[in-house]
């Protein structure tokens, strides 16, 4: 694509692409929570929308194609929170392990 030379992958305006997929879905509760965490954390000054964007863009095109919108968002929120020193990557890893140990579903992790 010669007309996109010098641009990063997310700067996709003007590229060729197929028909717009018109399917829509209602946001799941976990997606709404991710959105809420972003709004709350940025409102508290822990990071900015630009910080979110930087993390999303640095994930690269592969992540854009393979992961859903709010999957990428929680990864970007997490990265910014670790960078802001809110918690460490070790704390996150331990907590994810603990959540997994509680069970497989939201009912089992006792999370509503």
């Amino acid at each position, binding site marked *: 694509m010669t007309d996109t030379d010098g641009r990063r992958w997310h700067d996709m305006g003007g590229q060729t692409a197929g028909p717009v997929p018109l399917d829509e879905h209602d946001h799941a*509760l976990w997606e709404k929570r991710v959105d809420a965490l972003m709004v709350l954390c940025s409102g508290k000054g822990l990071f900015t929308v630009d910080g979110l964007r930087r993390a999303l863009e640095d994930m690269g095109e592969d992540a854009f194609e393979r992961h859903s919108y709010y999957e990428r968002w929680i990864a970007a929120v997490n990265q910014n929170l670790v960078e802001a020193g809110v918690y460490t990557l070790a704390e996150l890893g331990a907590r994810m392990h603990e959540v997994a140990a509680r069970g497989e579903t939201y009912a089992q992790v006792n999370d509503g």
Partner: protein
Amino acid sequence: MPHDHPDHAGISASGHPFRPDNDTPLTYWQRMEVAVRELLIEKGVTTPAEIAAQIDAMDARTPANGARVVARAWTDPAFKARLLADGSAACREMDFDIGALNLVAVENTDDVHNLIVCTLCSCYPRNLLGLPPDWYKTREYRSRAVREPRAVLREFGVELPAQTRVRVHDSTADMRYIVIPARPPGTEGMDSTSLAALVTRDSMIGTGLPRCP
């Protein structure tokens, strides 16, 4: 009743159908969301009540809010002038909490049709209309809306006269657009509540036209 129900056949122990989203094993990313949320609560950054309130606030933002703004613009020329001059201030005048974002209202006329996109990501007037539709965030829409807007509009069932000028507005995090669609013919004398019912989400993005009465 314990929370282990391996043979539920779609019905929970309490006799309700499971929400599909809650019934499948959590993905890696869903576990991350739980972990991040719990850590934020434990560290005192936020509370469960604050998260719930934020979700409720976002759920309350729907295209119906924008429809009220458009209907008022259709019926109140002085308001329309203020809306076009400063979209954020005009929406705040109607008690919509649109935050710090700079909202720019662009008006469709007999000669001009406006379309909004965010080619770089997914910027959208979310504080007024709620979260953007899935297609707004796709590669296909982001790439093509600025390259061949008429072809994109045709996929949404909108065929514009050849002489209509199409203006595409590329949003940023700090500047977001809303389209004021042209008031449909045959709506003279309708009140703003009835008019608002004609205003669709897509008509405020520019990928649709308002309903006709």
